[in-house]
């Protein structure tokens, strides 16, 4: 049967065609195609790894940022508290200084009042003693108009001196 008997001419042409096809493709096409395909597979793999890495980094960055923000908030609260504390302290201090100053001023005032009082007292005393002297002089003058009285006084004084000695 013809179908089961390979025809020589056909075998020959098939062989020629197949060898030509093989050499053309093996030289110019397949190595390039295989290389390109593998390169692209590599590229895609690398791209996926890179994307995953980037995503992880991004997630990390978010966490980091959250941490920093929280820290900043804490710090802010701390600073505010400090400021409040400082404010009260300053007020306290100011109050204390003010009261101390007031004390001093009032003390000084008292001292000066005292001085003034003393002075006025002294003056008053002097005036009073002068007045008393004048009064005494007047009284004396009035009493010493008579000679008898003068003599008596002299005597008396003399007696006194004598008793003293």
């Amino acid at each position, binding site marked *: 049967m013809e179908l089961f008997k390979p*025809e020589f001419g*056909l*075998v020959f*042409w098939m062989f020629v065609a197949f060898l030509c096809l093989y050499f053309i493709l093996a030289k110019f*096409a397949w190595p390039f195609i295989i290389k390109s*395909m593998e390169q692209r597979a590599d590229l895609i793999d690398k791209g996926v790894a890179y994307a995953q890495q980037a995503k992880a980094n991004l997630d990390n960055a978010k966490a980091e940022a959250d941490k920093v923000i929280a820290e900043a908030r804490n710090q802010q609260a701390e600073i505010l508290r400090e400021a409040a504390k400082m404010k009260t302290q300053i007020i306290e201090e100011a109050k204390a200084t003010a009261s101390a100053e007031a004390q001093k001023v009032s003390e000084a005032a008292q001292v000066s009042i005292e001085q003034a009082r003393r002075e006025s007292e002294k003056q008053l005393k002097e005036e009073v003693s002068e007045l008393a002297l004048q009064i005494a002089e007047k009284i004396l003058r009035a009493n010493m108009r008579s000679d008898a009285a003068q003599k008596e006084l002299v005597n008396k004084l003399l007696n006194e001196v004598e008793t003293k000695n």
Partner: protein
Amino acid sequence: MKKVITAIVALVIVGLMAFGYMSASRHAAEGHETKLDPKEVIFEHLGDAYGWEVPFSHHYRIPLPIIVRDNGGSWHCFLSSRLADGQEYDGFKIATEGEHKGKVVSTDGSRPLDFSITKNAFGIFIAAILVILMVFSIKRWYKKHGMKAPRKGTALLEVVVDFVYTDTIRPIMGREAPKYAPYLLTVFFFILTMNLLGLIVIFPGGANLTGNLAVTLVLAVCTFLVTNLTGTKEYWKEIFWPDVPVALKCPLPLMPIIEIFGIFTKPIALMIRLFANMMGGHMVVIVFILLIFIFGANSLAVGVGTSVFSLAFSLFMLLLDTLVSFIQAYVFTILSTMFISMAHVKHHVQVAVDKE
């Protein structure tokens, strides 16, 4: 829209059927085809020819060059149209009966050395050119677009290349894959293209290429040569002095004989498998179509009834053959890969052998 398309397709089919009946009955009336010989029709369609038939014509053939060397040693080259209808030319004719029926013979009946570009040879060239165009289209894409993924047809081809290379050749061959991949990929695409061309009924296709023993013989011989010419020392040692009890190989070399047989049976199995699968598929389709004419010879009504059946079945068979085309190309490639990789054993490992 869908209904309109269905209606158009149905009308075209009915029209073609009517046309076929008309021409068939006219031929019958003219006495050209007095009796239908199914066997002859089948083998005419499966076999080779010196011209390429065209639709709707029983006489006209696309002429192809005939190249023969006569017994005197001189070469003759002319177009096959010179020998049409039993004409003689330059001392040659196409034998109508006898041992060389359908072949070019000298007028004295002896067969010359025949290097004609027959229908099958021409079909092989067409397939080769198609493969070159397809493969270079992938290459051109990579050249032009670099790392961008291919689109449309190129993407389809790339998926097939990727399937054959990355999923089949590389896992089996390992580090040696890039060295043998060009051969295996060429084999795969060549067989696939020839298979699919065989399923197309008009001009660029229609030649029963892989269903021809000569074609599969060449492919199998190539795999045989690659396997055995690149075989390692270990491979030959396992054939002539395999790791079996000495009694099995010393006085009577039982295992070596079996192994040596194995060297030849593997490519022969490749050859027969591809040939039988593709030829069988074509034969079933032709038989289904022929049923129409066998029954139609009795009465028109029976013929019409059968045609619906036959068309449905042959359509199903053609779809199945499309699948088989792919599977057989793949099987040939994967078995070649395994044979070649088995010839490259570095040290003694038990390889699971798929001898089928």
